[in-house]
């Protein structure tokens, strides 16, 4: 494919850097954080500062903790990923007959076949691969079972985070989880609901992505 352009560009670039001594890339370590509880507190503080609702909930009873949040926000249709551990525990803890609970809607088919549904649900609940405490980010690794649009299209995104997967820094989580060895097609850091300041630098939330983000931190 346009091989001549490639050849020309590369030959010019090679000529341009001929004789340039390669610079050794330096290491950078962000300021260290206190560990343990303080790390989770920092994460929570940073997320709350960008209008994210954070709840610490018992690991075994997160579905019960989710219910009042959904009721309070008037969620009627909740998108979830069947077949994931999260999806299975949601199914197990759901009383489909209870009138005040949202209808759970599994993301089962390719986007093309259910695009309207994805654009119409009120909320979606997803897992997270971890979090970065020094900047206050969640790490999402969408995959075949948990599609990427779940955390993007519905107006409310509920992210479930294991407190054991909170790392100090982006570099730390990259190394610990060996990202470089196998990158998924899509990996995204999420720090709060969608926002913009394009009109008079006035901060406003919910411009294209979710209008609200709720994080449930699973603790023992």
């Amino acid at each position, binding site marked *: *494919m*346009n091989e001549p*352009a*490639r050849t*020309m*560009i*590369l030959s*010019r*670039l*090679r*000529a*341009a*850097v001929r004789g*340039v*001594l*390669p*610079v050794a*890339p*330096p290491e*950078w370590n*962000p*300021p260290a954080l206190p560990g343990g509880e303080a790390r989770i507190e920092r994460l929570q503080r940073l997320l709350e500062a*960008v209008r994210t609702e954070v709840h610490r909930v018992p690991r075994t009873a997160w579905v019960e903790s989710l219910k009042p949040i959904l009721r309070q926000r008037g969620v009627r249709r909740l998108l979830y990923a069947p077949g994931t551990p999260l999806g299975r525990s949601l199914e197990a803890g759901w009383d489909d007959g209870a009138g005040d609970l949202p209808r759970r809607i599994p993301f089962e088919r*390719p986007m*093309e076949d259910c*695009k309207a549904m994805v*654009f119409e649900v009120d909320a979606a609940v997803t897992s997270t691969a971890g979090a*970065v405490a020094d*900047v*206050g*980010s969640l790490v999402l690794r969408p*995959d*075949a079972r948990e*599609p*990427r*649009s779940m955390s*993007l*299209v519905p107006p409310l995104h509920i992210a479930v985070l294991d407190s054991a997967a909170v790392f100090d820094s*982006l570099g730390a989580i*990259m190394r610990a989880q060996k990202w*470089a060895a196998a*990158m998924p*097609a*899509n990996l*995204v850091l*999420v*720090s709060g609901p*969608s*926002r*913009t*300041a*394009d*009109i*008079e*630098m006035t901060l*406003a939330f*919910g*411009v*294209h*992505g979710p209008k609200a983000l709720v994080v449930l931190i699973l603790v023992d």
Partner: protein
Amino acid sequence: MGERPAFDFRGNILRALADGQLRRNLQSAMDGLIRKRRAVFDDPAELEALRTVGQSLKQAALSRLPALLEELEANCTANGIQVHWAETAAEANRLVLAICQGERATRVVKGKSMVTEEIGLNHFLADHGVEVLETDLGEFIIQLAGEPPSHIIVPAVHKNRDQIARLFHARIPGAPYTEKVEELNAIARRTLRQKFFEGQVGVSGVNFAVARTGSLCLVENEGNGRMCTTVPPVHIALMGLEKVVARLEDLPPLLRLLTGSATGQIVTTYVNLISGPRRPGEKDGPRELHLILLDNGRSRILADPELRQTLQCIRCGTCLNHCPVYVRIGGHAYGFVYPGPIGEVLTPQLEGLARAGVLATASSLCQACGEVCPVRIPLPDLIRRMRTDGACQGPGGPEDGCRPPLWESLAWKIWALVNTHPGLNALGNALLGRFGRRLPRRGPLAAWSAVRTPPRFAPKSLHALAVKEGLPHE
């Protein structure tokens, strides 16, 4: 590409300076951006260390650019990304059009990308029957207004909410008139959601491309970048070839510098790492992902050891925010896609000194841009280099062109003479004291005297006074 028909820099500057509303809009926005940047980089020592890391990482990548690009191409291809090379803007435009035509696509949704502005993609596609919709709120606003961006990061910064309210009311069917920012955002959200839903091709830029993993990193706050790269069946990413870095581990410091410098955020709402199209079994994401590597003059810039530093730029826009000239005239006055100090350096190199060399005159060389640049590009030095190169554009080559005009050499000779001979110096001072207020408003001094209050020279010079008063040191 990108520039308006006739480039009259002086005229643009005078018009911008006369626009009080523009100056107020810019001043308040730039003050806010400067304040937020300072708040996020609250430890000066840490910031300086980080800037050094950013500079070395970009220099390291540039020093082995061809090898990194080949590595990027190989790993992207292994990830299922189709990689294309474009020598010129026109070639890149044709590549995008060919992909759209192959998909029979007529509706493109685009995330904010300066490189697509650089190549004039929207106009080109529109001329060939493909509608491009800008989805970043700021870009959406200026697209409605039919204007180019006036800032690298906040493209609609020159407009205030009243202007945007009138624009939405006039151009979006069914949009009520409202000056509430929340409501204006809601109007944009409704309009654009439908477009994402219908979009056939998504176009985006790239902030960093990671050679080792074949990943494209894209930062944003709105989620429109995620929409453009997730919902349409085809995603086309365009990048200037200087955007490649070696390893995933290079990203954390560069991201910190980029978001902190650009918007004063410790991290943006979304940091996307895209390493391929939809994989087998996945339910969403584009079926096809194309990456276009654009040269458009960059290989030529790389060949010059000093100018090469221009390519370190990560497009954070902080040099604009801190520039006393940019804050007063705004981005449109610069006439080309990249405004401010980086534009004064980059544009003449992309468009040629003959067309754009005059941009380098829009600087007081106050050094602010150089002090804040997150990757330590010596912008003031490069602006001076552009001036020198521009002055050397004479018909007989550099030597000929660099010779100053006769009146200038004469003026400097007289100045030297007066300042090295005490008698002449005293005479000069006396003359200035008497006639200095009557600087001619015509002739060679008019550029200074026509627009300024005449200076008030003391009747006696300090030197003369000191002699008279008998200072002990004299």
